[in-house]
C-alpha cells in the first residue's frame, strides 16, 4: 500500500490509496470512486474514451499514474451536469441525438468542454481538430459537431446575458 494521494474530483477532495502508485487514474475513478462515466477504450491513450480534465486540460487517463495527479483538480463527465441540471453540451447532445452506442460520448464531451473554454466560437474545422483525439466508431461525427456548435451558441448567449 502506497501513501494516500490527495486530489479533487468534480470539486470534491478525495484521497486514493491504490496498492500501486502507477495505478492509472482511470482505474481509480472507476474502481475506487465508482465514477463509471470515464470509459476504458484502449489503455494506450489512443481513443479518447477516458478523457478527463486535469487542471482544465483535456487528458487521457488510462495510463496516467495516480501519483501524477496529487494536488490536481480532475473533472469527469459526471462533473459536467446531471439529467436535472444538464450542461449545455449535454443538453445539445440530447437535442441533436448525437450518438449511437454512446461509449465514446463521455470522452468527447470532455474534449468539447475544453475546446469551448478556450474558444467560445469555434469553427467546424476547429471542432473537428479538437475532437480528432476521440474515436467514434458508429459514425455520429456530424451530429456531435452540430451539438458542439449549438452548445457554444447557448453558452455565448448565457455569458452575454
Amino acid at each position, binding site marked *: 500500500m502506497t501513501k494516500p494521494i490527495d486530489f479533487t474530483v468534480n470539486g470534491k477532495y478525495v484521497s486514493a490509496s491504490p496498492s500501486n502508485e*502507477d495505478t*492509472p487514474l482511470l482505474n481509480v475513478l472507476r*474502481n475506487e470512486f465508482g465514477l463509471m462515466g470515464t470509459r476504458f477504450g*484502449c*489503455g494506450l491513450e489512443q481513443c479518447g474514451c477516458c478523457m478527463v480534465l486535469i487542471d482544465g486540460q483535456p487528458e487521457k487517463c488510462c495510463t496516467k499514474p495516480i501519483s501524477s495527479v496529487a494536488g490536481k483538480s480532475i473533472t469527469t463527465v459526471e462533473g459536467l451536469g446531471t439529467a436535472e441540471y444538464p450542461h449545455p453540451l449535454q443538453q445539445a447532445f440530447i437535442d441533436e*441525438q448525437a450518438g449511437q452506442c454512446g461509449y465514446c460520448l463521455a470522452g468527447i464531451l470532455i474534449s468539447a468542454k475544453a475546446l469551448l473554454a478556450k474558444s467560445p466560437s469555434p469553427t467546424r474545422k476547429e471542432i*473537428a481538430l479538437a475532437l480528432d483525439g476521440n474515436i467514434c466508431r458508429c459514425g455520429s461525427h456530424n451530429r456531435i459537431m452540430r451539438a458542439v456548435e449549438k452548445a457554444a451558441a447557448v453558452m455565448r448567449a448565457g455569458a452575454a446575458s
Partner: protein
Amino acid sequence: MNAPLPGPLNDNPSLDRWVAFPAPGKVTINTGRVEIGQGVLTAMAQIASDELDVAMGRIAIHSGDTERAPNEGYTAGSQSIQFGGVAMRQACADVRALFLDQAAKIIGCKAGELSIRDGSILRDGASSGQDYWTLAGAVDLAVKATGTGPRKAVADFKTIGANSARLDLPGKIFGDAVFIHDMKFDGMLHARVVRQPNRGATIGAIDEAAITHAAKGDVSFVRHGDFLAIVGDSETAVDLAGAAAVNHVTWHNVEAPTALQQEAAWLLQRPAIDRVIGAPEPSDAQGKERFEATYSRGHLAHASISPSCGLAEFHDGHLTVWTHCQGVFPLRGMLAKTLGLDASAITVHHAQGSGCYGHNGADDAAADAAIIAMQMPGKPIRVRWRREEEFVYEPKSPAMVVKVRALLDDDGKPADWTQEIWSGTHNKRPGAGGILLGAQALPNPLPEPPPACVPESSGGGGTRNGEPLYDIAAKRIVHHLVTETPVRTSALRGLGAMPNVFAIECAIDELAERAGQDPVAYRLSIIADKRARAVIEKVAAMAKWQSGAPSGGGHGRGIAFSRYKNRAAYCAVVVELDVDEEIRVRHVWCATDAGLVVNPDGAINQIEGGIVQSISWVLKEQVRFDNAVASFDWETYPVLKFSEVPEIDCELINTKDEVPLGVGEVTAGPTAAAIGNAVSHALGARIRDLPLTRERIMAALLKN
C-alpha cells in the same frame, strides 16, 4: 379464427413473453432484440405505445434475456424492425384485443364500443372506470397469440413514424453506469485470458514469477487444458499481468497469418466449395461485346470502440452470464455444449456494450468468463479483453475477390451477367458456423463445424447482393466458398454486400462510360423497379447531379445504388471528393426507401453512421498480417477521424404503406461504390481494389 403470425411471434406465441402490466400505470415489453447502439429499444417502445394505446413514458423495456424475453435468435441483418418489430406490433394488438373483450364483458357492452386512451378504457369516448391495470388480474396473457388483434391503420399512428428521442442516450451522455463494463458484484474478481494463438496450440512454459512480478499485486492463475487466465481482486494488477503474460508464456504448434495471405488475391488458388446459382451459362456468347473486371477487398475488423467484456457466476449448479453479444439464446446453447451443462442450468442476460457492427469478441468474452467461473464456483468473474486482444482475436470480415463478366447488347446494356465470388465464410457465430474462442483451448474441444456460409434464404453471406437488381435477361452467381482462411472470419455489417455492390456498381459505371452515357441515365435505362428508380432520381436531385462533368481534374462525383439483400431497403448514394495523393470525401448525399419508418431521426442516424463507416473501410481499413495479425491498435488500424468526415445529407422516401425494413446495413455497398466511381471520375483512372490507399492512387495515376 387464427391469422398467420409474424415469425418471432410464431416461435414465441405466449403473449406473456411479450407484454406485462406489472404495476398500476406501468407496462413492460419484452423483446429478444438487443440495443447495440441502433436505437431498437426506442423503436420497440414506439410500436408498443401505438398498438397498446399507452404513453411512451409508461413503457419499460426488457431485452435479451433467456429467462423472460422471447427467443428471436440474433439481433442482426437489419431485421429487428422488419421481423421483431412486426411481431411486437401483433403481440401488442392481440393483448389490446383481449383487454377490450374483458372490459366489454364487465361493462356489459360490445368491444366495438370501446377504445383505449393512454391505458384507460373509454366507452363512446367517455371513461368506463376500467383500464389495463384494473383488468390485468382477470386477463390471462399466458395464452397463445392469435394474430387477430386489429393492428392500427397507418393513418392512426401517433408515435410510429414520428421522431422519438432515444431512450438510452441520456444515460450515456451523463456518464451513468449503463454498459456491461460498468457492472459490479460483491466479491467480483477481474480476469484476463492468456490467449491460445490458434486452435491446436499448446502451452509450453508459463513463467509465473515474471508475470506475478509484473502485476505488482496479487494474482492467481486458472488453467483448464490450454485455457489460461489470470484472476485477481485488483483490475490494475490483472491488467499488468495479462499484458506481461504475452511475453512470459510460450506456445507450441503456433500458426500465424503471413503477409502473402493478407491480400484478397490469395483466395483465388485455395480449396473451395463451388456453386453456381441462377441462370445457366449462355451457349450463344460468340460475337457479343464482352466486359470483364475484377474487384477486391481485404479483411476488415469490427474495431468496436470498447474491447469485449463478459461476466459470469457459477452458483449451486447454475451458471449466470452477462454479455453484450447479439444473441443470448444461441450463446446459451453453445455454452451448454461447451461446458457440459444443460441449457436450463444457464441464464444469459444481455447488457449493453459499445457498437459491435456484427460478430465481434462479445460472445467469446462471455465464454471466457463462464469457463473461469466454472473453475471458481461462487465467485463472480469479470473478463475484459485487452485492446490488442480484441483486434487480433475478434473474427474478421473475410477478404473477397469479385469478378464481373457481362455480355452486352447492341445498345451497350448488359444482357448476361456473371458475378464470380471468392470469399471465406461470413458466419462463424457460435452455434451457427463456429465455436466459442476459449472453447478451442479446453481439453477435447468441440469439433470445428464444417465450412458453410449464410444460406441465400437468409440473404446469403459471400453471395449477399451478388446479383445485380438491374433488368438483365440472364444472371448468375459463381460462388467459391474458400474453406480455409488465414484468420477466423465472420459477420460484419452487410456481410458480402459491400464487396458485391462495390463490384456491381463500379462495373455499371464502367459500362455507362463505355456506352458514352451518364451514369444516372444509364442506371435508369436498365431498371424498371419503381422504388429503385425513385431513390436514384431522388439522390440525383439532392446532389444536383449534372451529366458530362469533366473527368480527371482531381475532383470527382460518383453515384451508386443497391437494394439491400435484393429484398430489403433501397438506397442510392452520391459522393463528391477530391484526390491528390489521398482522397478527401467532401460531401455525401443519400436517399433511402425503407418502407414504414418507425423513428425517422433514428433511421437517419443509422444511415449516416453506415455512410461514415463505409468511407472509413474504403479509404483506410485493411487488417494487416505479418507472421501475426499486425493490426493490433488504433495506430496500426486507423479509422476515419472527425476532421475527415464529410458533410452528409440524408433523406427518407416515405412509403408508409410498405413493410418496415432495416437501415443499418443499406449504405455500406452504395457508399463504397459511389466513392470508387467518384475516384475514377476524379482521376480518369479506375482503382478496383480496396482500400483506396495512396499506393493504389499513385499506381493508377502512373498507369494513366
